[in-house]
Structures are given as structure tokens and as C-alpha cells.
């Protein structure tokens, strides 16, 4: 366990350490920066609108997370609680979309967004991720394993579907929802290709694009790059720490990995 964690954490540590190294010592291999400096951060902050990009990324990630959870909950309720024509087939189709890499649908999505006149806008970054198969599948599964008697009790108490979904099911799926939220948030945060395709101006870009800007054809500015990457990973860390308890709980409870 310990060995494994060191193995996983080392690159992160290296990133942070490198970000503090002055430009002349960037390829040093000592474990601790001999002379720490904030030059890289200053440079990075001046080179690209990092603040703006972080806010953009945060906005996009948060919106995508909320949107996917909402659409996921609604769709999952339908699949878990209702019988309708072709329900199994539709469910399978949704499951299959999960297996299709995003790159495959990127071009059609691009054309769609372009036709809507949304190029170089944050809305375009959010739109294709408004609903996700993973959210639907995970939530439907969680709802199916929720005791039917409790839902029937709610029906006897006068609750219709809308109330059952929001007042009975959702509050009891907090674990699943929290872990899903983290997964969606992180994967949106780290997304690169789709924003790369869409973004034209740094002001409308996300942080991953910003980071790549330090890799130019003339060479890579490792110091600022690491500084930007460190800044980019801080929010994720914060979110993780915030929701960690719920996630660990839900992982151990549901056995989902």
C-alpha cells in the first residue's frame, strides 16, 4: 500500500517541486528545490490569463456536473421505476454510448455547435456533456437497489413520482451522487481535445488549454507549465477533500469502483 501510494504520488510531488525551481535549475534532480522561487508562477500568471481560465474551467466543470446529475437522475428514475415501450433497448443504447470514445463524435458535435453559432463560447463546452451514460447507469443501478417497500410507503403517503424522486430517492443516494459528481467534475476539468477544437481566444479557454500554451514549437517552458499545472490541480484537490468522506463511504458501501 505504502509503496503504491509513493509510486502514485511521486509525479505530483515532482510537479510541485519543479514549479518552484528557478529557470536555470529546472532539470535538477534533487528531491528538494535547492533555491525555491515563485518566478515560474509570476511568469505563468503574466503569460496567460490563468485566473480567467480557472474560473472558466470551474464554471464549465460545475455546470456539466450539475447538468449530468440532473439529467442522470431523471433518466435513471424512468429506467428504474417505469416500464415503457423499448425501455430495455433504450437503456442498452445509452450504455453503448459510454463505450464510444468522445473523439468519434467530436466532429459531428463540432459541426452542430458551429451551426448554432456557439464556437469559442463556454456554452459550447458544456452542451455535449449535458447528459452522460455513466451518470444514468450508475444512478439507475443505485435506484434499483433502493428498497421498493420504502417507495411504496411513499406512494401510500401520497407522494407521486416527482416527490419520490426528489424527496425520497435522491437524499438517500448521496454517496453515489457525490462520487459521480467527483468523477464528472474531474473528467470535465481535465478535458482537453474538445476545448482545443473550440476555443479561439484565451479568455474563452479552459485551464488545460492554458497549460498547453507553454508547450510551443520553440520548446517547452517547463517551469511555468508546472506552475500552471499545480494551480490547475488545486481546485480538484479541494473538491476531493471536501467530498472525500462521502465518496469513501459510498465506495465501500456500493462496491462500485
Amino acid at each position, binding site marked *: 500500500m505504502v509503496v503504491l501510494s509513493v509510486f502514485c504520488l511521486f509525479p505530483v510531488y515532482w510537479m510541485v517541486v519543479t514549479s518552484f525551481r528557478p529557470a536555470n535549475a529546472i532539470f535538477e534532480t534533487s528531491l528538494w528545490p535547492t533555491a525555491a522561487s515563485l518566478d515560474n508562477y509570476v511568469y505563468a500568471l503574466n503569460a496567460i490569463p490563468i485566473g480567467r481560465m480557472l474560473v472558466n474551467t470551474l464554471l464549465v466543470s460545475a455546470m456539466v456536473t450539475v447538468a449530468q446529475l440532473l439529467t442522470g437522475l431523471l433518466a435513471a428514475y424512468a429506467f428504474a421505476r417505469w416500464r415503457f415501450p423499448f425501455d430495455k433497448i433504450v437503456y442498452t443504447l445509452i450504455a453503448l454510448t459510454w463505450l464510444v470514445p468522445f473523439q468519434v463524435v467530436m466532429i459531428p458535435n463540432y459541426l452542430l455547435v458551429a451551426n448554432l453559432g456557439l464556437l469559442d463560447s463556454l456554452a459550447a463546452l458544456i452542451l455535449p456533456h449535458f447528459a452522460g451514460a455513466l451518470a444514468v447507469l450508475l444512478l439507475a443501478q443505485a435506484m434499483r437497489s433502493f428498497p421498493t417497500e*420504502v417507495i411504496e410507503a411513499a406512494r401510500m403517503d*401520497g407522494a*407521486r413520482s416527482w416527490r419520490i424522486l426528489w424527496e425520497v430517492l435522491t437524499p*438517500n443516494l448521496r454517496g453515489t451522487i457525490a462520487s459521480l459528481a467527483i468523477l464528472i467534475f474531474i473528467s470535465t476539468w481535465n478535458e482537453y481535445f474538445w476545448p482545443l477544437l473550440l476555443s479561439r481566444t484565451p479568455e474563452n479557454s479552459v485551464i488545460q488549454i492554458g497549460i498547453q500554451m507553454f508547450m510551443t514549437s520553440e520548446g517547452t517552458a517547463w517551469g511555468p507549465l508546472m506552475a500552471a499545472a499545480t494551480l490547475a490541480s488545486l481546485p480538484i484537490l479541494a473538491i476531493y477533500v471536501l467530498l472525500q468522506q462521502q465518496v469513501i463511504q459510498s465506495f465501500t458501501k456500493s462496491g462500485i469502483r
Partner: protein
Amino acid sequence: MMSQLSIRQLKKRYEGKQVLHGVDIEIEHGQFVVIVGPSGCGKSTLLRIIAGLEDVTEGEISIDGERVDDLDPADRGCAMVFQNYALYPHMTVRENMAYPLKIARMAKAEREKRVGEAADMLDLTAYLDRRPAQLSGGQRQRVAMGRALVREPRVFLFDEPLSNLDAKLRVTMRIEIKRLHRRLKATSIFVTHDQIEAMTLADRLIVMNAGLIEQIGSPVDIYRQPASTFVAGFMGAPAMNLMPARLAGTRATLERVSDYAVETGSFGPGRDAITLGIRPEDIVVSRDARVGLLARIDLIEELGGSRIAYCSVGEQEIAVVLPKAVSFREGDRLSLDFPAPALHAFDRETGLRLTAMNAARQEVANPLVTA
């Protein structure tokens, strides 16, 4: 008085599998009705259809004269207590009990008042701010009952509400339910497969078997005059002895015992293949070999208060309750006498009770019933 709940020719089919085959029930205001029957006979299905949780395939249900088969569960005025409590895990006891009232948009003050009263009645006042996970099974079931109570429903439905509790708590809760019913006089339907619960709780008992009603009556009537061999064998522990016999005139010969005839009385012509029944406690036991049927004790069950002997005579197994005065041991011989008024006779083909001998029996039974 007009009956409050009326079920006519109710049938239920699940994907081609018939579960209820035409059930008729009339329930009066304030009655406590218990439905009892073996596992899988359709008790829960019947209750869930009344609740509105399952659709009707055929037949009709009315409450207070109003057809309800097409109404939503919430609009039927029924409240249900489930076997696994079915409390909302994320709500406190107070919120659980107030939830149906909140949905009904009742004013907060009235809500609090009703929850307070119900909690008081059920001894839950100290637990109002706990969550279900922090309660014992008995407390959870009381919360479930409280949630049903606050709605002041027209009909209470219970689906084996006590079967998840341990034996001792089950008795306590049984008495509590009885007391509550005495106090509230609310029409209740209680499903169970525990016959002690059935006997003790019911004003009226419904015995079901394989999707049909076998008998409806007071617990005492059903015990004393079972309408069929099924009811005879199902109600009562140890179960009634059921012995194949041949009827000739007023005497029946036990088929599995060579040469022993019992005086029974007449049942009219054409009925010779019968099943003769007698409860283990009605058999008169003695050591006197001159009266009755000579038998050997195979096994004795000690129940503390009483002892049950399982005897064999020829091919026939017979269970008897041993008198306290005489001490018998396994392997002992004893003689069994079957008093005619205690005998039950059933048509072997249809399993239905033969009535002619009831006259004789009722003379004995009636004073006991009224006593």
C-alpha cells in the same frame, strides 16, 4: 350497517399466472380482520391490491360505497404498515410521521399536534429526533404505525408487521396493536401466517389457501368448526388429527387401523369415504385397555405447560395432549377414546365439512363459546 370495505369476485393474474381466483370479502366498520394462510397463497397480493399498489385483473373493490379500484393509493384512504417497516432512512422519526401530512399540505401546527399525539400513544416521544437507523426493530415498527395513524385513514392495512421481531417483542407488539384497536376502533386488515397472531387479534378471521378463501368467521368458530380439511389442519397447534375413514350408518371405521369403529352419527346417504378429524386436546387418554383404541407412544414433546404424545396405531399416526395427572413415558401403551361431539367429519373428495354431526357438537361447544 353498510359494510365499509367490499371486495367482489377479485381476480389477479401475473403474466398468465393466476394468483387470486375470485375473492369476496365484506368488512364492517371498526372490525379487525386477520387474513391468514400458508406462504404464497396470495395474502400480500390481496392486501396490496386493496392498497392500490397492484392493479386488479378482474372484480371490484369499494370503500364506503365508492369504487376505488382505479384510484391512486393515496386517494383510497388506506394506510399501510409494511413487514420491513419501510421508513424513510434520511428523515427523523418526527419527519417520517409528518411526511404524509406534509404532502397533504396540512398546516404545520396541526401536523405537529397529530405527530405529538401519535408519538405519545406509541411511546415514541423520546425518539422523535432520531433517525430510523438509531432505533430498535420494535421502535421502528411503532414509527411505521405512527405514520399510518396520523393520517387517520379509513382502513389500516398490515402486511406481517411483526414477523421481523423476536418472539417476545412480537407478543408485546401484538398486545399493543390490540389495545390500539380497542381505543381507535379503526377498520383494520392484518395479514399474517402466524396462527396465534391470527387467533388473538381477529374479530373476524379469513383463512386463505391457493388464491381462494377457505373460510371466514370468528376465530372461535373457525377453530371449532373448520369448514374444510385444509382449515382443520392449518389452524391449531398441534394440528388436528385427520384420519381417513369409511362411514357406514352412524359408525366410521378408521382405514389405517384394522377393525376399529368410532360412533359418529349420521350424515345422510352416499357419503362413505370421509376424513375424520379430532383435535389432540379432545382425545380422552387413559391406561384402561378396555375403552378406546390401544396405541403406543412413539415420541413425547415437552412444552412446559403441556405434553404432546405422538402415537401410532397400525398405519395411523395420532397426536394427543397428555393429561397432567398421569405420567406417561415414550414407549408406553395407552388407550385413546374419541368422544363423538368432538369429532369432525369431512368429505374426502371435496375436503368440505359434513354438517350433520355439527348439531351434536354444537350442543357441547356453545356453552363454552358464550362462557
